[in-house]
């Protein structure tokens, strides 16, 4: 039955027999030509086949191949960032239908199952826009350096075998080690704000992912040597005390990292560290 309209309004594509019915999905994309430039909305219609497993990035590729808006106007291809395509690098994080997530794991069959369904794409609002959906996330790397998120094992001689690691502790830390610094927790945080000026990054709120990494490295047998330095940063402006306990971070984290547990654990460590500093220094 070619071109038969099914119950949910999708139409079988005669050009691609066997792939299944195809439908038109409309993408509303918030576009921006460069840093400091004004934003505008453009719509694109993309044909998607039922069951092909397309994600948002596949649709953005189709838009790039034929950059014509839904109104028929020729435009520039939409720019986006991507890396691994399997939700472990965080590069393609964007705001999909108002919620921060990775575009690679955002499947069209789930988001827009019917013909004419709409998907809204925006760049993350907490990072400076490079162009269209591509943002500059270097502030997160800056914060990890500020928090010394590493194990200090560099030296001129062999340090010998490391300390023994307890499996139970390792399991606890494992969850935090899956953080890919994507920025979802920061995008959803009412306390984390856009700071285009790098000069403000050392006093602005570090955000949930950085507090999770502080716990990860403080609990590490070797990296824990730098725990006092990290806690000094947690007591400074922008540290853990700037958390407002809205707890959006833990709900939007694609890796389901217990970020609010980390915030409370670092809050406890900061309380003790602060008391030590107040009375013993």
């Amino acid at each position: 039955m070619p071109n038969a309209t099914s119950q949910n309004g999708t139409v079988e594509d005669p050009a691609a027999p066997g792939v299944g019915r195809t439908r038109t999905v409309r993408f509303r994309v918030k576009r921006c030509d460069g840093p400091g430039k004004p934003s505008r909305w453009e719509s694109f219609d993309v044909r998607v086949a039922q069951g092909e497993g397309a994600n948002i990035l596949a649709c953005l590729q189709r838009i790039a191949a034929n950059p014509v808006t839904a109104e028929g106007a020729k435009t520039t291809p939409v720019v986006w960032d991507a890396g691994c395509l399997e939700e472990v690098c965080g590069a393609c994080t964007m705001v999909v239908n108002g919620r921060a997530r990775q575009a690679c794991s955002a499947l069209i069959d789930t988001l827009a199952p019917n013909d004419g369904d709409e998907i809204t794409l925006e760049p993350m609002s907490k990072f400076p826009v490079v162009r269209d959906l591509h943002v500059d996330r270097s502030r997160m790397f800056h914060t990890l350096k500020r928090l010394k998120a590493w194990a200090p094992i560099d030296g001129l001689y062999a340090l010998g075998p490391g300390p023994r690691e307890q499996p139970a502790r390792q399991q606890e830390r494992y969850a935090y080690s899956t953080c890919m610094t994507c920025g979802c927790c920061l995008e959803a945080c009412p306390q984390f704000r856009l700071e285009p000026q790098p000069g403000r990054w050392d006093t602005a709120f570090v955000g949930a992912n950085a507090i999770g990494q502080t716990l990860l490295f403080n609990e590490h047998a070797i990296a824990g040597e730098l725990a006092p330095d990290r806690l000094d940063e947690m007591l400074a402006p922008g540290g853990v005390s700037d958390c407002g306990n809205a707890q959006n971070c833990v709900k939007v984290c694609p890796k389901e990292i217990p970020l609010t547990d980390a915030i409370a654990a670092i809050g406890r460590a900061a309380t003790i560290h602060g008391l030590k500093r107040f009375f013993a220094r």
Partner: protein
Amino acid sequence: MPDHDRPAPFMQRHHFLLRRLHSLAGIMPIGVFLMSHLTTNSSVVWGLVNANRIPEGHAGAGTFQHEVNFIHSLPYLILIEVFGLWLPIAFHAVLGVYYATTGRPNHARYPYQDNWRYTLQRISGYVGVLFIFYHIATLRWGWTFLIPGGTQWEAQYAASTLAMALQGGGDGLTTPGLLVSAGYMVGVSLLVFHLANGLWTAAITWGLTVTARAQRRWGLVCAGLGAAMMVMAWSAVIGFATLDPAQARLAEEAVNRGHADPAHVEPAEILTQNPEGGRP
């Protein structure tokens, strides 16, 4: 880049200490005071159990007068007020408003219950501090031009003059009086929420409740405490908004003259409590 030649501003140098003092001040003294304050004020309702000890007038009003008389017998009351209440409230309010302006509520995009409470905590803080200012200015500092009816609150006639301030005068509830009473209802409800939710977040801030399970458990405790305080707050406002000032005045005068004492224990009760015989 941090400027090493100039010392950082005061707020930045003592960032953590100020944050923790802000949290502490909300619980002690302010939160502890609010609990005792609501206990005292709801005595206009629970004080009705003293009907046999205060035979004249409204027993709740008499009990409230007895509580107020005790508070006004405290030594150095003005120092307790200034250093125990007004300055901590000003500190908590000024810092709280400053901290709140550093956030951007986003409950519309992320409508989680926790996130709604984040927003409501800030709204209740803004409204709450305005309400506290009106409350103290009109009743304690005597800014009677802000009271419909222009009546003055007097400590020796605590219940009747409070009822008049809430009702817009001594001749029953007027429309401006209804507005003041409704404002009190909203104000105290928001402040009770602010304390209950603040206790929940403070336990995370200080690191007492670390896991999500512990936070849920403590959340139940805070919700229970908040519900109990809400009952006290509403009974106090409704109790005074509906109190007959004349009946209240009768009980107040009886208590003030020493003719009625809600804390009075009958000799017979002492005897039943002490079977050995009523040795004083």
